[in-house]
């Protein structure tokens, strides 16, 4: 490339770059616009919000913040803490056990291997809603409401995350490395934790973000299983604010809380997205 470059190539590259930047800028504006609107709406009073759209902030930010924070029906810090605990543990369990399962299927030749793999692929297409009805019923029967673990533990079996890990291993994990570790006398479990896991870093970071975000925003199951105020999560509280009766209804508060709810996921996202980038340089293996 260094010596073959000619003017034609350079012009092509420049045109390509301009096009790429144009596409990226348009998409970024679209993405940022939704955030902009959320921020603007958080600065508007209920009456203003009922009146329609506004492009500029309207100075009720602190008022909305105070109203949301002091609302007697919800406890924002508590809700954030609950949501964070559930989302973080779910994300860790989901990614770790999905990688473990994927490695089990990827690295070992055992009798049921094919059958188990096919089974996971098949159940991947079953929507979680199918099991939700039965699951909620069971939880009530066994008194498992107002506990976090019935929401966290199911994360261990995440067929979709498993599939991603498996696909990723297929493209990056050479068995030679594992065999070298075996020759060095490392046991299988240690090999997985100390050698395989670090190599999967980009995949793990990606799936951690996804599972954290989806757990953080999850409303369906938590709203059915967490009924006591001290266990409620952020989405339940937002729904509660939105369905408040007319004397208390305040869209300003709702938008403010939505804005607050995004901040923690944003932080987690930025931290993890850095490790995706790092993973590229650290994780590359010469095949």
């Amino acid at each position, binding site marked *: 490339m260094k010596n*073959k470059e000619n003017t034609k190539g350079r012009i092509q590259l420049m045109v390509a*770059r301009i096009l*790429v930047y144009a*596409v*990226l800028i348009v998409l970024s504006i679209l*993405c940022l616009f*939704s955030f902009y*609107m*959320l921020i603007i709406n958080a600065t508007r009073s209920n009456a203003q919000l*009922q009146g*329609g759209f506004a492009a500029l902030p309207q100075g009720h930010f602190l008022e909305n913040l105070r109203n949301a924070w002091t609302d007697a029906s919800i406890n924002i810090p508590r809700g954030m803490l609950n949501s964070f605990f559930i989302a973080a543990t779910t994300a860790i369990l989901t990614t770790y056990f999905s990688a*473990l*399962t994927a490695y*089990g*299927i990827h*690295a*070992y*030749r*055992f*009798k049921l*291997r094919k059958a*188990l793999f096919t089974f996971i692929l098949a*159940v*991947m*297409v079953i929507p*979680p*809603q*199918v*099991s*939700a*009805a*039965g*699951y909620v*019923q069971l939880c009530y029967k066994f008194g498992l409401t107002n506990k976090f673990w019935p929401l966290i533990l*199911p994360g*261990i*079996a995440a*067929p979709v995350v498993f*599939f991603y890990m498996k*696909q*990723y291993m297929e*493209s990056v994990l050479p068995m030679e490395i594992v065999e070298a570790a075996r020759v060095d006398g490392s046991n*299988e479990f240690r090999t997985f934790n100390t050698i395989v896991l670090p190599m999967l870093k*980009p*995949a793990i970071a990606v799936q951690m*973000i996804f599972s954290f975000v989806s757990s953080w*925003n999850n*409303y*369906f199951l938590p709203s*059915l299983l967490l009924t006591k105020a001290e266990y409620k999560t952020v*989405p339940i509280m*937002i*729904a509660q604010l939105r369905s408040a009766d007319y004397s208390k*209804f305040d869209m300003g508060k709702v938008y403010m809380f*939505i804005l607050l709810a995004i901040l923690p996921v944003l932080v987690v*996202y*930025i931290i993890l*997205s850095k490790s995706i980038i790092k993973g590229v340089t650290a994780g*590359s293996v010469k*095949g």
Partner: protein
Amino acid sequence: MKKHKGISYAKWGYIFVLPFFVTYLIFSFVPQVLTIYNSFFDNYRQGLTQIGPTFVGVKNYVTLFTPDKTGTIDILKYAGNTLILWIGGAIPQILIALLLAIFFTSYRLKIKGQQFFKTVIYMPNLIMASAFSMLFFTLFSNVGPVNQLIQAAGLSEVPIDFFAKKVTVRTLICSMNFLMWFGNTTILLMAGIMGIDQDLFEAAEIDGANSVQVLFRVTLPLLMPILVYTVITAMIGGLQMFDVPQVLTNRAGNPNRTSMTLQELRHVRRHLGDHLCHHRSSEPGRLQQSLQAVQGSAPEAGPDLREAAA
């Protein structure tokens, strides 16, 4: 994989996959069986009277596939809607995401500000789907900025009711899904491309391959496993689409239920709700309410939104 020095590693395979299957059995399989079992029963509440649970065989399924007064079979109609919304949402999403992933990982283009763009394109996914729908509703309502622009530009005398026409509602739903998920897909594909050995790209370059050849001969074949994954998950996501159409169309799947997706089947919901009520007679009202409110993500925003925007 070959066995080494006669040692069998097969048992480790079982040990490693055990937690997954135990969890799946308890938390997914048993509840699924229970759900299917329940579908053979009549079990709901009519006013204050509890009907059932009585075994009715396949009656519920027959009801689902029985044409209504106008001769349409709802479940097939909903399946068709889901399919249309999925195709409209997933295909552009995967194509654009693939393109972006290739842009970002191309060392030839060397895009500046990559970190910024990558961060920004995923951000819509951080917003709850119901909140995202609320924003879209405000933008496209009769008094929203989009209609103001259209009228100011003289394109239309009267405001266009985006939520009353099949085409516009579907387009809105598809574009929302696109905006929410294309960043997610891009990141997945990027992680896949980054997993490909860089030496291969260099080797192709040295052999004089141009970027199109590199794309079709190196990147895409090696990316296939991840690409298959994104297509499948986009499909599953599409089939399970619920909250976006729900909030956007004020719970009715307007116009004329053309955006009603499979997840919204009322039969299913009624069944689920009433069943729960039966088992929690102490708080039936609250549960019923939350169940109606839920199925995904708080569609009770619907009326509020209508008021807010009207």
